[in-house]
């Protein structure tokens, strides 16, 4: 778990003074060096591995065996990249990802934006753990939405794909109203501070030339803040990895696959193994 890559700050906000933060209980400092490169230092002064990708600085307390996951859309010309900014949530980092994967909550939590009653039905979709990439994917997810994106006028049926490329990161692909055939990319990068506390860094790569940047940020922050109040009140606080007696609904299938995948990787930071 220490060998995974984690987001630790926005690159655009770094300065020489650095930013003190925490990764899995260990204090770290994220800063710019004299050449303008990002550095991450542990509390004991050890230089930690660094990547700068998708607007954020990434680091690890251990020795990552895998390169940071790829988002090919991040290199596609014509997209706008949106640094949404950090939001702290008192919840398990895994809970934050699980909630992001859950479509059924749209009409109830994001009422009149990402969903609306009575359009609460989740149609059939496909979930798999892809062997080659070793990632969780949910595809062909369709949902009626009153205002799917800042660039959407009025209600449309939106198609989604969800992807979990790393234990605390999820990438969402979503129908792009101004450019049919392309996908808007919305990510949730989660920095685990403790097993029940995290900093969440949403980020977006969109085809939208019209909407002012502040509108795009406000739209995504509104959505995430609606989730935050749910996340802080979830019980149990840690993500149970044993499904126990729960009978999954269609909407939960992605969550079931995510938990199974975490368990397979023995990723237990922020999880509980025995039902309590």
């Amino acid at each position, binding site marked *: 778990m220490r060998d995974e890559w984690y987001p630790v700050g*926005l690159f*655009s*906000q770094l300065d020489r003074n650095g930013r003190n933060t925490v990764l899995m209980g260990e204090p770290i400092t994220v800063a710019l060096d004299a050449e303008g490169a990002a550095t991450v230092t542990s509390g004991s002064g050890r230089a930690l591995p660094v990547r700068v990708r998708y607007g954020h600085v990434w680091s690890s307390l251990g020795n990552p065996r895998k390169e940071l996951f790829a988002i090919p859309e991040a290199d596609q010309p014509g997209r706008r990249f949106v*640094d*949404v*900014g*950090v*939001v*702290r949530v*008192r919840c398990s980092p895994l809970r934050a990802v699980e909630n992001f994967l859950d479509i*059924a909550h749209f*009409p*109830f939590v994001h009422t009149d934006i990402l969903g609306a009653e009575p359009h*609460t*039905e*989740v149609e059939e979709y496909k979930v798999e753990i892809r062997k080659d990439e070793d990632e969780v994917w949910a595809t062909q997810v369709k949902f009626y939405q009153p205002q799917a994106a800042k660039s959407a006028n009025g209600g449309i049926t939106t198609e989604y794909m969800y992807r979990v490329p790393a234990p605390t990161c999820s990438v969402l692909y979503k129908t792009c109203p101004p450019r049919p055939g392309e996908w808007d990319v919305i990510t949730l990068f989660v920095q685990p501070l403790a097993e029940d506390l995290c*900093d969440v860094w949403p980020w977006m790569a969109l085809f939208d030339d019209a909407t*002012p*940047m*502040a*509108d795009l*940020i*406000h739209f995504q*922050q*509104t959505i995430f*803040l*609606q989730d*935050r*109040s749910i996340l*802080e009140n979830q019980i149990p606080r840690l993500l149970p990895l044993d499904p126990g007696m729960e*009978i*999954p*609904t*269609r*909407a939960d299938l992605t969550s079931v696959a995510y938990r199974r995948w975490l368990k397979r990787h023995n990723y237990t930071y922020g999880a509980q193994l025995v039902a309590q």
Partner: protein
Amino acid sequence: MKLYDYVLSPSCYKVRLMAALIGVKLEIRPVDFHPGAEHLGPELMALNPAGSIPILEDGDLILTESTAMLAYLAAKAAPEWLGSGAPEETARIQQWLSFSHRLTASLGGARLHEMLLRPGDIAALQAQGIAALRELEAGLVEQGLRGMRFLASDRPTIADIACFPYVALAPDGGILLDPYPAIRLWSRAIRGLDDFIEMPGIHRLHELNPEPQIEPGAA
């Protein structure tokens, strides 16, 4: 009328809420407060040297204090929100308008610290927030004894709108509202007003809507 607005700011929400309740249309100019700190950039600092938002612009008039904005909107469109003019009521409105700044500093400071990682002494902010909530609770209990549901009158005034958002969002700063029954009742009365609008963390009262249920057989 143009409002320089941040969607997660309770002070900006006061102005949006007031305008919605009395049917005034605002032109919204979104400000990248977080993470961009646009409120500290040259354009907004020229409008408001204090570097705060909201800012309300109406012709030559530029307002940078949310309580002044509430008074302005009410005076223009719905003077009944300014109170009846009776001396005690006038005084109570002024008292709670001033008090609302303490809520901003304490509950608002705790919320910014806990949610957007702004610096601050969280224990002190929470303690000050709790002290302010106790004072508000006592004030509302006394109003109840006078047969009044709102802070200064039996109808809502700008004082209620000035105090409501930071109180309703206290849990964002780690302060629970469970110990304050009069505050919770007052919050319900405000959330139940016609034309009430929401912000993230503050919900309209849905008394007629049952809790969402998962239908059996949906799996």
